[in-house]
């Protein structure tokens, strides 16, 4: 960053902007660990980190950024792993998590308007005091922010009953890179949805809420994925739960190993059903659907435990001590085939599979592999993510997100028409290209600026696959040290 730009930023924002190396380094990753070689492709360490408290400060930032042509990267809690909140060629990282004000909760309209930086869990706690609740939230709700989820996209808990997060959003306040503040409504919201902030910074959202009706979890166990899926197919014809989460035996086994808490049989497939306003009728529908397929209903304690665990799939990381995560959307009718294929293809790698049925048509499937990212050869293991995605595509699935790393999948993700619209929107709203460059529309490799990152990944994929076979990660059976789960209550 030029000296003059740095001085202008310092003069304008004083202690709200940091330039020291350590602080900048802290914002150079998201939930994924970047292999060292990544620095050949991008410059993930930003030149500065900015912590705005209001919209005016963001408008001021864009003024200076435009003047000096500095990239501006918006960031929530950094809980995604697609690189959408990473710097691509340095720039100013804008940490939006201090913009948390809840402006209005309407009991009449059942809506809430809040700052983009508030976390889902904090907003849920505030709403519950008004007898309202969120219609859907991501599994990273304790830290994920409203703005972050809107920009990143993805599915969540509650989608099955209430639709995707997009469906919950009534309006969005966006600061365009030219400094203009606009209020998005209707179709304009869809245009800016899942764009990683390449058209501006989101500062406020209005959401639909639901009445804070208790959610009742029911846990069904099955001996095979076939039985489980048959039960879910029957159930979904009669009832729409708030959420359905499917867990494979490996997922349960590894999680229990990581926590030291053994509650469930490690031979079964589990379906956790979360049901809003459970009544005797719906309870019997659920029981019949499960039992008619040879499944069992586990006791309430186990169901409640699993429901609490919905936020903690990353517990497995303790066993690595690293983790590799691949995500895809799969049609519900291909889910059993997909899970079986994953379990077979990666049987030596202990794939832990978790699937969220997000609509009557589709499920989001998350596959976790323990790994140790301290290994020099750990980068080869990332090929598993590409293999998972290719398998998903073959079965009629689609990518989970694009971000930086998977910008090559943008056509599959957005479709040709939407992509055209996005390009047009980007051109008109950010002609100087300072708003989160390199994301979605694709970036180029840093040391070979004529090679798109997507192409580099395509070329590297077969070599990574070979590398993964040669340098296969083998989980130590003696690792990790015993887990300390909860504290002893002495009195």
């Amino acid at each position, binding site marked *: 960053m030029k000296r003059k730009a740095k001085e202008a930023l310092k003069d304008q924002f004083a202690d709200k902007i*940091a330039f*020291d*190396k*350590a*602080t900048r*380094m*802290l*914002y150079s*990753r*998201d*939930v994924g660990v970047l292999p060292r070689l990544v620095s050949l492709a991008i410059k993930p360490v930003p030149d500065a*980190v900015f*912590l705005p408290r209001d919209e005016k400060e963001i408008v001021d930032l864009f003024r200076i950024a435009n003047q000096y042509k500095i990239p501006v990267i918006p960031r929530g*809690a*950094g*809980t995604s792993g697609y690189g959408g909140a990473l710097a691509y060629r340095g720039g100013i990282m804008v*940490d939006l*998590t*201090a913009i948390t004000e809840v402006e209005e909760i309407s009991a009449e309209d059942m809506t809430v308007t809040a700052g983009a930086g508030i*976390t889902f*869990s*904090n907003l849920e*706690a505030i709403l519950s005091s008004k007898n309202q609740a969120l219609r859907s939230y991501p599994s*990273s709700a*304790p*830290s994920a922010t409203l703005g972050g989820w809107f920009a990143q996209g993805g599915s969540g808990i509650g989608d099955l009953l209430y639709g995707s997060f997009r469906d919950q959003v009534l309006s969005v306040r966006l600061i365009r890179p030219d400094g203009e503040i606009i209020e998005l409504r209707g179709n304009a919201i869809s245009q800016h949805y899942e764009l990683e902030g390449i058209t501006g910074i989101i500062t406020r959202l209005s959401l639909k809420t639901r009445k804070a009706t208790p959610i009742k979890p029911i846990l069904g166990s099955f001996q095979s994925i076939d039985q489980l899926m048959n039960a879910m197919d029957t159930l979904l014809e009669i009832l729409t739960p708030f959420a359905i989460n499917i867990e494979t035996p490996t997922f349960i086994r590894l999680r229990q190993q*990581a*926590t030291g808490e053994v509650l469930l049989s490690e031979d079964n497939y589990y379906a956790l059903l979360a049901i809003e306003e459970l009544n005797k009728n719906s309870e019997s529908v659920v029981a019949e659907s499960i039992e008619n397929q040879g499944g069992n209903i586990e006791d309430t304690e186990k169901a409640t435990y699993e429901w609490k665990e919905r*936020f*903690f799939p*990353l*517990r497995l*990381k*303790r066993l*690595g*001590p*690293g*983790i590799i995560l691949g995500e895809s959307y799969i049609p519900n009718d291909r889910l059993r085939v997909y899970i079986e294929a994953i379990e077979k293809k990666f049987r030596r790698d202990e794939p832990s599979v978790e699937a969220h049925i997000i609509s009557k048509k589709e499920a989001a499937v998350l596959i976790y592999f323990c790994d*140790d*990212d*301290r290994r020099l050869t750990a980068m080869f293991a990332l090929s598993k993510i590409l293999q998972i995605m290719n398998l998903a595509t073959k079965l009629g699935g689609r990518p989970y997100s694009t971000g930086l790393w998977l910008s090559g999948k943008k056509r599959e993700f957005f479709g040709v028409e939407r992509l055209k619209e996005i390009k047009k929107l980007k051109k008109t709203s950010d002609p100087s290209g300072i708003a989160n460059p390199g994301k979605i529309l694709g970036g180029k490799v840093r040391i070979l600026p004529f090679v798109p990152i997507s192409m580099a990944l395509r070329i590297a994929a077969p070599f990574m696959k070979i590398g993964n076979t040669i340098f296969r990660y083998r989980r130590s059976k003696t690792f*990790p*040290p015993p*887990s*300390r*789960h909860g*504290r*002893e*209550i*002495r*009195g």
Partner: protein
Amino acid sequence: MRSFEVGLEPYICSYCGFCRETKSSCPIFKETRWEKNTARGKLHLARALLDGKISKKDIFPALTEAVLNCTLCGACEEVCQNHIPLVRTWKALRGFVQDNWPINLSKFVESLVQTKNIFSLDNAEERMLWDMDDIAENRVNKPAPLAYFVGCVTSFSGRMGHVAERMTEVLMELELDFTILGGKEWCCGDPLLLLGLRDEAIAFAKHNVAALRNLGVKEVITTCSGCYKTLGLEYNTLLGENLGINVYHHSQFLKKLIDEKQLSFKKSIEKKVAFKDPCELGRLAGIYNAPREVINALPGAELVELPFNRHEARCCGAGGVFKVIDPGMVMSLGDRMAQEIADSQAEIVANGCPTCYDNISLAARRQGHNYRVVDLIELVHEALNL
């Protein structure tokens, strides 16, 4: 340079960020909002150091600031989905960066090691200054099976001496055979442990254990949650033996007396009373029920809860030697806590830690709140009508 003993913790962190915005909420992050003040940020800094990703020149100032800007309240550890022993990690890192500490912190430790108390006062002469009325005069250094370990803040601060008086009066009323170490009581060593100075803390533990054993003590009561945690939960490990001394936080001891029907209350409290869970007693030592059971036993007292309680209790801001590190922020965190109490139903907030008590009562006074701030023993004393 000290050895780096944080092991695998920085690698186990899943980067979920749940430590940023917990229910009890990291008090420092809430105030500063910078990533380096989160557990995730601190572990990431430690990892960068282990991986050699960033030069020591660049990392040490940030790592030092990050690990010292912490009250060691354990809120982050409580929500860590990977069960990383974070408080232990912060202590180890604090010791590791000792060469980079600010001068006032180094002087504090130097003086503590020299004077044996956190106020740099003459330990032998002034440890009993709280006893202005000489009520405990004949208890000092008297061989007895039970000892009251008063602690530095209560002994020296000048604002907390009445807690020791009330405790002593209750014990005397019950005609218990107890002793007080007086000038022979040294700091329990908690501040040293909180700064990662284990070896230095061992010397304090050895001294205090020897002083207690010399008087034939088998049971110890403390009115300080830090002293309780250190004497009761750390000394055995520090000294590598089972000391055979039962240590009670006074809430546990009072509950025991209530269960044994040794306390006959005569006066009604007739107020809504909340217990402010001290971090070192609750999250870090697992004591939640005893103080509440004591309040429930007080005639007329109605136990109410603060909005954030038990394992989700908010830190008052004064723990973890943070008063030495950043007294200004301790005040603003105290103000935040005092306001939270004001927004609750509580008419009285009872404490089990002199550091919380001091910080909250000062903040409540600054802000003009009219609820009463007391130690648990004051309510018991009052109900006994002593």
